């Protein structure tokens, strides 16, 4: 098969941020699968949110049309991305904002660090943002001696726990409230207002402790860093959709606001937001509308930040755009509906994917952003059951894309080595056998020898590698004494003799 060539399309660089798994997925998953507490938390959380989403999607008679519109708008953006980005830059600049272009994570981190230094600040407050997680901004700022405080409740839990997010929307989905109480008691005092010593694990008490701790951060911060859910090209307006009000605090209180946004987050016009503000909350939190939607356009005297910087981030997105069969992954609005329905994610959790983008969308997005060689096991981390495609609000055909990316993985390995892997040998041999009915019938007859493997047990309980991976937990029935085609051939012969 001919694969597109990605010459001159840089992928996300290694050594910075979090897009690459250090371990192959099957290995990382194994550890997670053994954690009974994690399994219980995940099953409970994903099950709840799945049901909520289904209920609020069901009540919209035009969901299918909204979904088609969402996909079409995003495709329009991707097809004209060059023009829309320039339009956005013009509009943001005309309204007093400053636009910065970042080719990759390193450039983006350097731009933000310099801006914070220029503002004379030693710390920043942060709105939950996938883009800044992707580029490892907090770590980069820490290296420069700048403290970044996460203000989203779940991100705060993750940060205080010296942990990493495991879900796009619910980053602390792997923690339960007893663990959260422990983390708050142990860590809050080290970085700010301590948690009350008699803190219980009641959700209300935990939330109150976080409010008090964060309130001081909001009031002291000079600089805020956010991501963006959407940017409107025609007006230069940015939008952040959230549930806790921490975003509203960060976007309005500090003097300087820095927004880091992936270049695919655009919509052409204000009218297009109407579609996404229906699709996103219903798909992500299972709400008809999220509690806080903040939009800002440039800067205004005496109202909100007096300085606004927009950092436009590529970091492998143009490389993703270059693949006609992979580019629709850039439609993603980070709702995480696909994570919540994925039977693999539900059992392994997000850390097994090794990237800030876990679950089905991560399995198609991360390998494209890094180049498939660096996340080669991720396209295989799916049974292709199709549940993700059904719920995707922008109709990304994730199963089809996974198959395509698997072929890119196989072709990359073909290019890299002339010596075929054992898998390649098996696949080639199987294809050769199946390309001839005579060889195929012969192979099936030979497989009857497998009856010997079963002995007197009547089933096969152990096979050599790689099939031992199957028989580790599953039996195989004995091959039949007669294949279907032999039965049919005999029956036809009989019928011809005695019509």
């Amino acid at each position, binding site marked *: *098969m*001919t694969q597109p060539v990605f010459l001159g399309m840089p992928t996300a660089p290694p050594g910075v941020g979090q897009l690459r798994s250090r371990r192959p*997925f*099957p290995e990382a*998953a194994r550890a997670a*699968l053994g954690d009974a507490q994690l399994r219980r938390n995940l099953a409970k959380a994903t099950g709840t949110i799945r049901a909520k989403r289904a209920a609020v999607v069901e009540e919209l008679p035009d969901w299918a049309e909204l979904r088609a519109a969402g996909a079409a708008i995003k495709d329009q953006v991707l097809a004209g991305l060059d023009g829309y980005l320039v339009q956005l830059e013009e509009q943001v600049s005309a309204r007093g904002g400053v636009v910065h272009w970042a080719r990759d994570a390193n450039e983006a981190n350097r731009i933000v660090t310099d801006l914070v230094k220029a503002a004379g600040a030693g710390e920043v407050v942060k709105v939950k943002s996938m883009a800044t997680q992707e580029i490892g901004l907090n770590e980069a700022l820490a290296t420069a001696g700048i403290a970044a405080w996460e203000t989203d409740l779940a991100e705060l839990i993750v940060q205080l726990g010296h942990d990493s997010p495991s879900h796009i929307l619910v980053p602390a989905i792997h923690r339960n409230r007893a663990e959260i109480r422990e983390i708050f008691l142990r860590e809050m005092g080290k970085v700010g207002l301590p948690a009350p010593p008699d803190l219980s694990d009641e959700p209300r008490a935990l939330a109150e402790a976080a409010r008090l701790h964060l309130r001081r951060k909001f009031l002291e911060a000079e600089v805020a860093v956010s991501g963006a859910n959407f940017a409107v090209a025609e007006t230069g307006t940015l939008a952040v959709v959230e549930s806790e009000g921490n975003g509203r605090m960060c976007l309005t209180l500090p003097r300087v606001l820095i927004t880091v946004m992936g270049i695919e987050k655009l919509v052409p016009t204000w009218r297009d937001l109407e579609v996404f503000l229906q699709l996103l909350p219903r798909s992500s939190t299972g709400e008809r509308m999220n509690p806080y939607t903040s939009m800002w356009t440039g800067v205004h005297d005496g109202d909100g930040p007096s300085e606004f910087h927009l950092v436009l981030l590529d970091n492998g997105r143009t490389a993703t755009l270059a693949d006609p069969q992979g580019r629709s992954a850039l439609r993603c609005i980070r709702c995480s509906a696909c994570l919540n329905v994925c*039977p*693999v994610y539900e*059992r*392994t959790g997000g850390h097994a994917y090794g990237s800030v983008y876990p679950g089905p969308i991560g399995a198609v997005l991360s390998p494209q952003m890094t180049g498939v060689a660096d996340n080669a096991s991720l*396209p*295989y*981390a*799916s*049974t*292709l*059951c*199709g*549940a993700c*495609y*059904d719920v995707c609000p922008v109709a990304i055909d994730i199963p089809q894309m996974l*198959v395509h*990316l*698997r*072929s*890119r*993985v*196989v*072709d990359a390995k073909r290019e890299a080595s002339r010596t075929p892997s054992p898998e*390649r040998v098996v*696949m080639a041999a*199987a*294809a050769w056998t*199946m*390309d*001839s*009915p005579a060889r*195929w019938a012969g192979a*099936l007859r030979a*497989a009857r020898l497998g009856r010997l493997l079963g002995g007197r047990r009547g*089933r096969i*309980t152990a096979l050599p590698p*790689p099939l031992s*991976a*199957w028989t*580790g*937990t*599953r*039996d*195989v*029935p004995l*091959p*039949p004494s*007669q*294949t*279907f*085609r032999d*039965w*049919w*051939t005999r029956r036809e012969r009989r019928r011809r003799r005695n019509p």
Partner: protein
Amino acid sequence: MRVALFVTCLVDGLFPDVGKATVGLLERLGCAVEVPLAQTCCGQMHVNTGYLREAVPLVRRHVAAFDGYDAVVAPSGSCAGSVRHQHAWLASEAGDPELAAAAREVASRTFELSEFLVDVLGVTDVGAFYPHRVTYHPTCHSLRVLRVGDRPLRLLREVGGIDLVELPQAEACCGFGGTFAVKNPDTSAAMLADKMHNVLSTRAEVCSASDSSCLLHIGGGLSRLRAGVRTVHLAEILASTRTEQPEMAT
């Protein structure tokens, strides 16, 4: 009507009784069934593992083998899905528009068994008798690739003597996923554990599905646990009558 049985490689080699049951059922309903012996495998395993190049000759073979029939019927949602949703795409990828056109043609006449019975033959009561407690796993590709909906259940509800019990979380994947089961054995086993838990909770003696691959997986797990539940393909249940119970004979 000239009906060709696309028996699938798995049924051919490992579950011939499913093929025999499908033939018996279709003939009982008045179809003249033929089995083109030029068929081998639709190539889904190759495609889904990323070996597109190797799969192209298998698509060419499949398309040629099933040319000219009024209908092609498969006792598998997954294999019918591969023909309908992958063959033409693969041929285009390989730069062969003629093969793509021929593949689309064959795909338009390819049906999963329950689709063929309900939509083409227009029957839900196939005159079957099966006096057992049965739960039904609807299989991912039947549901989400072919969209067969409740057709298998409509067929099962008409079966005489059956005690059909609803499977909790029926639409969840069993964890098979072709080579996924071997490449990600731990995750696959975790998914299977939950599927088996749900099957066992129904107290059914039979777990049915319209895909031998899913049944190979679920059945392999149940067998390992000595759970006392057997897996039986939908075709075998529908082929059973008061006088003939092929599945029980083997």
